[in-house]
């Protein structure tokens, strides 16, 4: 499999002197296209910090991150924003959907940021909502949807611009067990493909079985890489 993301010697610390906290220490790993990769570990182990550095959101203090061979931290802030817009899709833990917009408008946001005309963007958003099974919810505000439905709207927003890399932050944290499993099954079945790499930060053991590979973090370091047989 090709490397979608390659991290080398990644370090991140916060504060200076006696107050310095090492959040991520010398992390090296690769993520591949066609792979559902979990980053797991206890709270404070550096999962979110690592994910933020990999996705071009948080600048590392040391090390490099290559996305499809390009060192992203050598890009200007605008180029980095463009890269996130075109190559990476995010599904946040709390979804961060705009309650004052309809579900379709929420999904269309990445396309609108890419200067796509409003009507075209909405049409494309409706198509993505159909993929996630929410075609009839397109005109509803996210606050009128259940947690699982909101999660799917967030997924539709993440995939609408067809990114190569998808990043899920605790995707099942706010969902009950069944819904969480259904969401992950859906992601694996419908969203993952050979041209896409999905990174999931989680500490929900109920969904570990769906991962292709699990990276375990502890105290800012990679402790273990666990290969799973594809389910």
């Amino acid at each position, binding site marked *: 499999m090709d490397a979608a993301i390659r991290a080398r010697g990644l370090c991140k610390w916060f504060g200076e002197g006696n107050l310095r906290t090492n959040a991520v220490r010398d992390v090296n790993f690769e993520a591949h296209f066609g792979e559902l990769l979990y980053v797991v570990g206890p709270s404070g182990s550096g999962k*979110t*910090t690592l*994910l*933020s550095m990999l*996705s071009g*959101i*948080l600048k590392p203090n040391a090390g490099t991150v290559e996305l499809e061979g390009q060192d992203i931290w050598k890009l200007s802030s*605008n180029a980095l*924003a*463009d*890269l*996130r*817009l*075109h190559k*990476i899709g*995010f599904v*946040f*833990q*709390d979804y*961060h*959907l*705009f309650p*004052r*917009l309809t579900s379709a*408008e929420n999904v269309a*946001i*990445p396309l*609108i*940021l890419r*200067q*796509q*005309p*409003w009507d075209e*963007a909405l049409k494309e958003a409706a198509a993505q909502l159909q993929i996630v099974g929410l075609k009839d919810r397109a005109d509803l505000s996210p606050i009128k949807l259940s947690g699982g439905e909101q999660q799917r709207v967030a997924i539709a*927003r993440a995939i609408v611009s067809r990114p190569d890399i998808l990043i899920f*932050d605790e995707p099942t944290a706010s969902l009950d067990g069944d819904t969480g499993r259904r969401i992950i099954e859906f992601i694996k079945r419908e969203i993952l493909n050979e041209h896409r790499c999905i990174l999931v930060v989680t500490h929900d053991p109920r969904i570990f079985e769906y991962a292709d590979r699990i990276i375990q973090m502890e105290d800012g370091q990679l402790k273990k890489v666990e290969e799973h047989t594809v389910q």
Partner: protein
Amino acid sequence: MSGVLRIAYKLLVNDRGKFAALLIGITFAVLLMVMMTSMFAGVMSRASATVINTGSSIWVMDPAVNTVANAIPIPDYVLDAVRSLDGVKYAVPLFTGSGLVKLQNGDYQAVSIMGLDDSTLLGRPRLLEGRIEDIYADDGFIVVKDSEYAKMGSPSLGAQFEINDHKGVVVGIARVASSGLFGIPTLYTTYGRATQDLPTTRFTMSYVLVEPKSHDDIARIARAVDALGYRALTKEQFMQRTADFYKYQTGVGTNILLMTVISFIVGLSISGQTFYTFILENLEKFGALKAIGAKSRELVAMILFQAAFTGFTGYGLGVGLCALLIAAAKLRLPSYAATVTFFNLGLAFAMVLVITAFASYVGIRRVIRIEPFDVFRG
């Protein structure tokens, strides 16, 4: 960018409670600011009504005169002296004063009297009815048909009245550009009749109206009149002097200025606070947008658009509401002195821009500072 602004628009107007609070804040701030300044402009315009209506280029007066209504009579030789100055095309006397009219029904009514130069009738009003030459007829008076006209019993041509125990006959009905400040009807007659029928001091002339030969002569005439011990002011200077008197020596201007500043502060506080709360509530969403790939300038544009849209909508509503209130007030009170001027509108607009800029600034500061990482971190 238009799609981003459309998102900004929907985020704003779909939050109906906040949007209404923002609009109410700015609308009432604008309403108060425009209302206050319009009332002031109305009072100022009426205070200078005689200057506006007469239309003379230069007014010669006693140096102690502060407003056109409070003329200090000047001796006749001033007229001759002014006429002899270099650069003076012509100069005529003007009488302004007040009198007591006894109407046909027996009621008494205070009136303002304008005595025009007998030979030229300089400063005469535009006649709606009657002929100007009839002002020379026995006891001839012209009545101004303004908001105070009814107080004279809405007389028609030929109507008779008594003024200071002299007979008066309405020979003309006229319209002027601006009504007076004091809510009393205005009568025009000749200078000679005015000084004959009305009790006066030893000197009778209120002002000398001067027309210079050219604009360049104004300064020279003013200097020469100064040397005589009197004061020559252009029409604009006289209006400004009148306005300054009401502004700084009566407290009217200070009070209105204070009210305007208070309105501005109230608008600024309500709008700034509400807009800040609106931004705070959406802060994480803006952070999420940044993470997705929105650039800072796009987020700044969204906030500026939201603030500007709210500000300008509130401005329009405030000005509209103010115009409506003034129109309604004038229906009930014809002499209600309030005038919406371009200056008032410009001033309120500038203040709305300040409110909008302030509200945007506080919002932009927060949004620029939010790190997408904070969204992940929760």
